[in-house]
């Protein structure tokens, strides 16, 4: 199947190095301390953050750091076929672990000892790149909750089909069986926290694909910064500043 046609357009009309349209909204869940909704093309994800609050299970309390918990679920209606076990299956457990460890690296946990921060991420519409969208949404939600962080964490995926590196794969391109590289970076520090890849790639091509994903992450970071600045301006306006 042709994923990049001879004119250089992909199945959805994008260029190989073009990301899907990003859309973010802060404060989607009014009951949470911080929440955000993030869309990358057709992938729509909602994140809610509760914390810092008292640790619910005393046995898990850590004396010098905050405890970070993360739960990733996919809504039953998020994929084409109605999923039956949206959480507790192996993929969800692994992604929850991955998101938790990624956010743990950037939250300044030592400032909030003996407390707990819960991050709940739910996928409402899955069209490829759900992991990346979840991390981006979690970053926004944590910022909305006012939790101190070292830097934003942004994430993007890239792949390699028809001998072309492609940025931001959608579901069809992802299920083509080619490699799928998901990268999560700390943009200001320019460091890679999350790196996952499946399927085979020669090493030099891998370097290009990873570089492309990193560029995508930086573009997402710029967008997220804009959204946060807009949000702050709105808050200032409401306070009458």
């Amino acid at each position, binding site marked *: 199947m042709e994923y990049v046609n001879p004119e250089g357009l992909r199945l959805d009309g994008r260029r190989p190095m073009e990301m899907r349209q990003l859309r973010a909204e802060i404060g989607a869940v009014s009951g949470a301390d911080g929440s955000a909704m993030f869309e990358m093309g057709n992938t729509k994800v909602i994140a809610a953050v509760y914390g810092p609050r008292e640790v619910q*299970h005393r046995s898990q309390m850590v004396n010098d750091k905050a405890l970070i918990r993360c739960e990733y679920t996919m809504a039953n209606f998020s994929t084409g076929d109605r999923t039956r076990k949206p959480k507790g299956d*192996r993929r969800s457990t692994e992604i929850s672990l991955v998101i938790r460890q*990624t956010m743990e690296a950037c939250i300044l946990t030592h400032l909030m000892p003996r407390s707990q921060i819960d991050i709940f991420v739910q996928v409402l519409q899955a069209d490829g790149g759900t992991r990346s969208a979840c991390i981006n949404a979690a970053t926004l939600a944590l910022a909305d909750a006012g939790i101190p962080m070292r830097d934003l964490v942004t994430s993007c995926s890239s792949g390699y089909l028809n001998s072309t590196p492609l940025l931001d794969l959608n579901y069809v391109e992802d299920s083509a069986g080619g490699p799928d590289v998901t990268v*999560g970076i700390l943009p200001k520090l320019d*460091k*890679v*926290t*999350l790196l*996952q890849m499946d399927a085979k790639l020669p090493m030099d091509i891998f370097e290009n694909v990873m*570089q492309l994903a990193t560029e995508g992450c930086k573009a997402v970071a710029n967008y997220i910064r804009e959204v946060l600045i807009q949000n702050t301006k709105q808050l200032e306006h409401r306070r009458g500043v």
Partner: protein
Amino acid sequence: MEQRLANSLIMTVNEKKFIETALLSDLRVDGRRPFDYRKLSISFGREDGSSEVQLGNTRVMGFVTGQLVQPYRDRPNEGTLAIYTEFSPMADPSFEAGRPGESAIELGRIVDRGLRYDSLFTCLNFCSSTTESRAVDTESLCVISGKSLNLYGNRNLVDASNVAALAALSTFRRPECTLGENGQEVIVHPPEAREPLPLIIHHLPVAVTFAFIGKENVVVIDPTHHEEAVMGGSMTATLNTNGDVCAIQKAGGEGVLQSVIMQCLRIASVKAGDITSKIKSAVMLKRYDLKLIFRVKYSEFEKQVESYNTERSLRKIKRHNPSPAGYKH
């Protein structure tokens, strides 16, 4: 309720500082240099497809079983590979019996990711030879499920489990199957009737784990339990000897520069070559053992031959009970 990452080792501040300071002068607590692996030894069990790997003090057992099932509808010419991991509480006080915890699942998925895209599936050549002459909706294909049972951990379970899975897959033999007369049913030939066939393995993806300790970009290979407790982040790279990167897993943790990642990959490809040659020689040794036994048959040592024959036929009888209860999953 999720569990904390299963590293229950409680480290004192002094121990942490000692490990970090020693690493600044390129010294590790067990005397290795930063990019040295621990001693790796691979041994095989009596049955085809069982292996035991010892990496330092970490021991992992791998076992491969195969069965016929219907293929996925969108991939009718391929079989499937399922990886199950079990952390037995015998291995480490932090492992709980019963449902696999987070780290068990992560381990399973890392090994799975490395092996999955490996075209091990074209071992189902038996299917292609028959489906070429028949309709593609031939009903059965082999499912190979690889299972690792982690016995004793001095950590770096990922690398050891990966080697165990590869070794077990290299020695696994599946029974030969042919289609029946009307082309609809599949006859599985018992191993006495027809010699079981080995899997066709295109390449061996080897996992190499790096730990990032401290803040000054210190990287070590094959971390021990103590180093894992101290590390800020870890990365597992699965590579093969053809220069391909098969899978990478760096699940959060300390941020590292891209240049450090590429350097790690280059080191990993060297180590992958070493480990691949060790696996291959261990598998060859096992095959050679069998050939040696056949040579003995044709010599004058009748007694040896007879006793071996009886043992072999006893083994064949054992084969009728396919899977011992312990490995049921």
